[in-house]
């Protein structure tokens, strides 16, 4: 059951992720990315992270991606025109992809003793996450508020119209 679930959603995630990269219209890429995020949310549930799964849908799929969609619609961005590829892509792409091939090989070779099954870890409830957030991770939590303030100020500084 768990294996079937994993295979289904992992396949969706990979296919959608490939779609993000190969689709020529930004809207299609955005929709595919939402698909990746949705299937990752299901995988999070499988791994016992129920709060993070909900946050994934609310924050990522529900807020961040809507913002993307919004900007794409607003700018009416058309299909991408293929041009000569810049040289930096090749310069960086080959070694980066090589590193990931190596990492992949390592992950496939390594066999961790524990398999994943639903309900194997139940420490990811909203209560557990909240408790950790306000005790051990109090400082990062408070400091994050500065980050959000910066985001607000920054977005206004950059995007507001001259009056």
């Amino acid at each position, binding site marked *: 059951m768990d294996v079937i679930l994993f295979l289904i959603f992992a396949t969706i995630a990979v296919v959608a992720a490939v779609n993000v990269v190969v689709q020529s219209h930004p809207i299609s890429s955005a929709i595919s990315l939402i698909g990746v995020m949705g299937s990752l949310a299901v995988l999070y549930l499988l791994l016992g992270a129920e709060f993070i799964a909900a946050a994934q849908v609310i924050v990522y799929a529900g807020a961040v991606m809507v913002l993307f969609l919004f900007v794409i619609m607003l700018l009416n961005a058309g299909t991408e025109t293929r041009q000569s590829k810049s040289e930096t892509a090749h310069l960086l792409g080959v070694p980066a992809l090589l590193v990931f091939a190596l990492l992949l090989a390592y992950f496939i070779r390594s066999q961790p003793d524990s398999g994943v099954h639903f309900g194997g870890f139940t420490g990811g409830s909203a209560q557990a996450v909240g408790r950790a957030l306000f*005790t051990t991770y109090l400082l*990062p939590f408070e*400091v994050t508020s*500065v980050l959000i*303030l910066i985001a607000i100020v920054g977005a206004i500084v950059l995007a507001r119209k001259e009056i």
Partner: protein
Amino acid sequence: MPVNAYPGATDLLRFLPETLLILAGTLIMVLDPLVKRRSSPLFGHLTLLTLIAGIAVAIAGASNPGPAFGGMLMVDGFATFFRVLVMGVGILIVLPSYPFLARQDGETGAFHALLLFSISGQCLMASASDLIIIFIGLEISSISSYVLAGFFRDDKRSNEAALKYFLLGSFATAFFLYGVALIYGATGTINLDAVRRSIGPLRADPPVMIVAAAALMFVGLGFKVSASPFQMWAPDVYQGAPTPVSAFLSAGPKAAGFAIFLRIFLTAFGPIGAHWEPLVWGASLLSMTVGNFAALTQTNFKRMLAYSSIAHAGYVLVALAARSQVGAAAAMFYLVAYACMNIGAFAVVSHLSGRGEKYTDIEDFKGLAQKQPLTAAMLTIFLLSLIGVPLTGGFFGKFYIFRAALESHLVWLTVLGLLNSAVAAYYYLRILVMMYMHEPGPAAEAVEPLSPAMGAALILPALGTLVLGIFPGWVLDFAGKSSELMR
């Protein structure tokens, strides 16, 4: 990890410098709508006061070192050193920004608030001892820097700088994060001390995952400090951003980036140093070479300084490759010297550039010595220091770094580094020739008189450069002691 539900007075005291900066930034945001003029010097004064107070608090806090917030922060000599450094950088940036913002009619409130937030992020990076704080500090510093780079939203170059800085910065962040994830997977913790304890016994044969994590974090941090081969954003960003912001980017985020570079690689990854040393070795050599040779052909002064900044990142990486206390101290000394001379050079550009930043080409420095001998003299000091001429901070910076490299038997790297410095002398000297041996061009004719703030912005770093060159022991001793405390 101990769990404190409520932070105590000690925790809050050790976090006071950051708190001060954040509160002042918020205060400026609140006051901003109350001040009618777009460009008012009030916020600059407030920022200056805050930074001075922050430095005082940071130094006072150094008398009581220790961890805070259950090991999230580690306020030691190292943290204090970098906190003072980035806040000092802040002061040196605020001074030239007075005339600059007045000339461009920029919104001082938002500018200084973002500057303060960015510096608070860098302070956080300097004092963090947990990867989550490092990550959040990094993001606070970066995101406000993205906005600062694009501060003039109607200026095409400023937009472009912000876009490139943002895209490559976020890309680097993803790499850094993947490294953090692998560390968490391999060790089950993200606290630097705990990571070190966990991988200490594996010195001889560390798991692939940890080496991969080190490599990924190296890529991420390499982007942040503009080391080659991850340097491609720097020229466009430094050239396009408003000049005081370019000065800030080349000093503040870079110093903080090196602070976490040193902290992570010398403490957490210290035990597996043999595995990452070749990476640093290669990156430093590449940075020095790419930076210096590309700078030779530049015609824009800001772009030339960007390439020179890549080269200087290479010098600091030489010190990291040495993997020793002496090397860390040398890197810290070099960063101070570099901050002084580089901000000074950018301040001169800012003074000369005129409204809309028209004059930033090397040609525009023609005959500056005839029109404003003081400005030209200051720029001479900075350029000589950037070359590494004795009696300047740059000389002792390079001297200590290469000495540390030799002590760690990195002979070839030292030789290649010295050769590089010789190449670099050419393009700095070209500017001296422009200033002293040509008749004044349109830029030099149009240059405005030195305002008090701009005068201070030039004289302070020049003094710093000279003091570092004549009494290097003052800062070096502090750096040496700080790097010893880093354990």
